[in-house]
């Protein structure tokens, strides 16, 4: 079953078999009322969530370009990779961005300029052996609260994650000293939240799931 390796799940050394979890259920167990739990997005989301760039015959409804011609603000590009524990680039992650507009205002209703403040990108659009990056074209957000620095929210999910993770990207040119969220992050880890300059109007923001520079994620 060599083809199974393509899922990236097979551990060659693993001769273990099936695990039966039913020992934990003593008889019929009903569901309790409450929040619906999260489950992994899995490897095969692209034709549903990001069909356009992957070439599937399903109209795209989410853009990677948030900065239409009528949208006011400084044009920027955000590019990054997602790395796993071993430094391998993740080819099946979904990255979503949510941000305020250039004046620091979030979208609450359809706008004349077409700005939605939301973008989505899969990292495997060019194939799993290509340069599996995510890339957005947008405008630099304004500060949405007094004293806070501008930032972009990123929602990160992938095969091998049970829950989506939430982080934020700050800009290297801004004063982060008084930002109320940065202040709650251990000093040694704050750097993982700050993008790097990658040329005029261009920012690199890599996401590391583990390792010495593991990206800070937040519990809302």
């Amino acid at each position, binding site marked *: 079953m060599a083809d199974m390796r393509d899922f990236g799940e097979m551990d060659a050394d693993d001769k273990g078999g099936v695990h039966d979890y039913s020992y934990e259920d003593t008889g019929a167990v009903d569901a*309790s009322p409450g929040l*619906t*739990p999260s489950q992994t997005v899995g490897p095969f989301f692209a034709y549903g969530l990001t069909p356009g760039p992957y070439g599937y015959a399903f109209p795209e409804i989410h853009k990677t370009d948030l900065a239409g011609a009528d949208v006011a603000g400084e044009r920027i590009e955000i590019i990054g990779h997602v790395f796993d*524990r071993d430094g391998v680039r993740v080819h099946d992650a979904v990255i979503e961005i949510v941000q305020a507009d250039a004046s620091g205002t979030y979208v609450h209703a359809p706008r004349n300029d077409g700005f939605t403040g939301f973008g989505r990108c899969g990292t495997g659009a060019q194939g799993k052996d290509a340069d599996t990056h995510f890339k957005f074209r947008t405008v630099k957000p304004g500060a949405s609260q007094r004293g806070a620095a501008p930032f972009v*929210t990123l929602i990160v999910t992938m095969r091998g994650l049970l829950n989506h993770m939430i982080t934020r990207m700050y800009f290297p040119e801004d004063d982060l000293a008084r930002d109320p969220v940065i202040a709650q992050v251990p000093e040694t880890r704050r750097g993982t939240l700050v993008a790097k300059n990658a040329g005029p109007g261009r920012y690199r923001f890599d996401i590391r799931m583990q390792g010495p520079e593991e990206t800070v994620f937040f519990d809302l």
Partner: protein
Amino acid sequence: MPETAFSDYKSTATRAPSLEPVKLEGGWDNSASLRPVWPDLAKRDADLTINGRVNGDPIGERIVVEGRLTDEAGRPVPGALIEIWQANAAGRYVHREEMHAAPLDPNFLGAGRCISAADGSYRFITIKPGSYPWGNHRNAWRPAHIHFSIFGAGLAQRLVTQMYFPGDPTLRYDPIFNATRDARIRNRLISRFSIEDTVPNWAHCLKFDICLAGAYGTPFEEGHDHG
């Protein structure tokens, strides 16, 4: 925050963060009332038996999958974007990296989407997906499932999950389903067959109600129009 890793689900070992998420005091920012704007969706996108049609009907058992989106207080969540994707009746995904030796169905894409109605309800028509093997361990089979992606109001109402089918014999062996460790919570993911809502002479109905967090765990403003 629930666990992000489960050792029996192998790929969590290299991908789930090793450190606890930073718990914030004072919330995220004033995006709490964020109301994402979605484009108008084609009605046919909620009917997976027609939105991938090329020259005939897709093969398999037609089903209705419907339910309600509510918050923890039981209030409806209207205007949420619900996106689904799934394997076809033979257990094969359209995804180009999927190598399972089962046939593609030329008339079935397996992706759909809709916006929840004013009362939080949603409804899809689709084909019951098949079970399929995967490489997590020897003889690993995913139970039949439909992936759900939901974006309601605010960041706290983002949810990615999977819906399962009642009575599926493979559920008890699946490390993904069982990655939700508490059985009473896990079983919220199993849809319920409804004879009342089954459409006579046409299709079984599976009910799958979804409960989302309040926006940042706080109640919605009374009278605020989310529709």
